[in-house]
């Protein structure tokens, strides 16, 4: 069992995402620590990528800001290492496959372990293609966190059975971004997944308000918030620490 299970050990998990290096690596470090202190149970660090095809405009812009500010893969590893030295909240990366492939799967997973990163969420690595990375990741104790979408009909059972870390249930079609309304029957979707696996199920894509968190927390093991956090950082720049603390606390409170 990996570190990730700690995030789900004590009630419903609040999973907080930011893009590493947006606006700077030093700011990301402060924000990750602040969010953990404010109640985030798991921290998801996005490795900026030139062409993030699963992201909406908010996180796309964060990727561009981070890359323009000079963030690179080794810089993000160093960020993770520094955060891990300060807090024991589990860390995962969200990354597209090419930076991992280019770094070399073996070397990348080894660096993850050294820096305290417990899992990888890779939006362009679907279940069928995981075989080339999963055994290497497992050897280093890294979970490949798999996604299940509203369009995964007929595939959920197999994906859920082989899931490690947690299952990332995608709430809606399309790309990441704040949604006022989620039309998927999430309770049923999460219920179907939970029939297949004891691995925790967290819901992301479009989640942003405490009301949504409370509603989803009633049937899922956690919620994942990305775009809302990134938009706070986009608005506040270097001064986002206080509003991030307040926001994370409000979400964690709604889940309790």
């Amino acid at each position, binding site marked *: 069992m990996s570190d990730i299970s700690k995030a789900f050990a004590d009630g419903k998990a609040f999973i907080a995402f930011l893009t590493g290096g947006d606006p700077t690596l030093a700011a990301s470090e402060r924000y990750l620590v602040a969010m953990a202190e404010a109640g985030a149970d798991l921290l998801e660090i996005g490795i900026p*990528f*030139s*062409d993030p*095809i*699963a992201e*909406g*405009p908010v996180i*796309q812009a964060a990727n561009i800001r981070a*890359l323009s500010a000079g963030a*690179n*893969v080794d810089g993000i590893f160093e960020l993770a290492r520094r955060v891990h030295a300060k807090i024991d909240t589990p860390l995962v990366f969200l990354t597209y*496959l*090419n*930076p*991992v*492939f*280019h*770094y*070399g*799967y*073996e*070397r990348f997973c080894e660096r993850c372990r050294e820096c305290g990163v417990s899992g990888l969420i890779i*939006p*362009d*690595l*679907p*279940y*069928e*293609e*995981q*075989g*080339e*990375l999963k*055994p*290497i990741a497992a050897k280093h104790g890294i979970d490949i966190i*798999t*996604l*299940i*979408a*509203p*369009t*995964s*009909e*007929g*595939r959920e059972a197999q*994906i859920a059975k082989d899931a490690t870390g947690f299952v990332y249930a*995608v709430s809606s*079609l*399309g*790309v990441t971004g704040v949604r006022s309304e989620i039309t998927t029957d999430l309770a049923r979707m999460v219920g179907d997944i939970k029939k297949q696996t004891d691995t925790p199920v967290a819901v992301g894509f479009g989640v942003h308000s405490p009301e949504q968190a409370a509603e989803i927390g009633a049937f899922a093991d956690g919620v994942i918030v990305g775009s809302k956090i990134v938009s706070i950082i986009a608005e506040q720049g270097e001064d986002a620490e206080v509003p991030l603390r307040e926001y994370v606390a409000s979400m964690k409170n709604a889940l309790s």
Partner: protein
Amino acid sequence: MSSEVTQNPETQAAGRYGEFGGQYIPETLMNEIIALETAYERFKDDPEFQTELDMLLREYAGRPSRLYYAAKMTDDLGGPRIWLKREDLNHTGSHKINNVLGQCLLAKRMGKTRVIAETGAGQHGVACATAAALLDLECEIFMGKEDTERQALNVYRMELLGAKVNPVTSGTMTLKDAVNEAMREWASRVSDTLYVLGSVMGPHPFPMIVRDFQSVIAKEIRSQLEAKAGKLPDAVVACVGGGSTAMGTFYDFIDEPSVRLIGCEAAGRGIDTDQHAATITKGEPGVFHGMKSLFLQDSDGQIAPVYSISAGLDYPGIGPEHAELHATGRAEYVPVTDEEAVQAFEYLARTEGIICAIESAHAVAHVRKIAQEFDADQDLVICLSGRGDKDVAAIARYRGKDVHE
């Protein structure tokens, strides 16, 4: 090169060409990709589907395209007999019509009412809008904002044909970003929509489907040259961006070892500058746009900005089957600069009276370089993938003349 290739055949997805290919796309699209593959496997050998496609290719697109003996060019170069495969004479002015008719018919069979597509120069976008108009499909095209400005006439053409053109303002605002945006759009609306990909790239089954629909080019070359010269060609030459022209031109000859397969990629301002799109010459293995293949990228695996005078070759990757044909040495890939392509564009216009697409001119340019390697009793076929009307203003500007469309 730090990447390693780790393969586990038992858990590997479909659509592999050696180590290349695969289906590296978000989970949201997986069922749709599988449905497309199932539909294609069902209809590709369905007599009714084939009859309808053949009829459209013949009566609507104007196939078979001519295999024209370029006597003056042959004479001038003093090498092999040179033949031009005239895809430029197809309806909509390029080879792109071969693929879109096939994919749009498939969309209809799958019960889709809407198609989306990316486009660079606009040839695929115009072809897709054309097929959509003919087959009563709603159509939206994604085109980099920079390309909508470079190819403003094609934007209006697509609109005339009833398509909605969405200028893409993310990233480098060119073809790569148009593909990103089309994929994002597809993931947000899969039920009634098919993504009609324009090249032999992306996740399986697209590289296979587009290759199959384009392989009509090679089949025709084989039978036409057999009729005219009684033999196989000694070489076939085509330009390579994503690689649909070249794949269509090569496909029937892959198992004929006597036929040289030559792909010409865009060297832009030179492969020693950072302004080119020479993926095979300068790229490295990677995973992007749904496929494992070769890509121009930096030391961190970020996809590199690319450049070519030709919007149709201005792409940082290449189809996975080309990556494999390169890896095995079956096909040769060579870089051709903007300047060489422009000179060839002018050369073909003056020598044969044919204004070809600047993409195709990359192939013409390379043949001018290698003609002397061949004997007079050998036959070399150049695929003229498209006509050059769309490029005239840009070539004039390249030559310092201010021509307004």
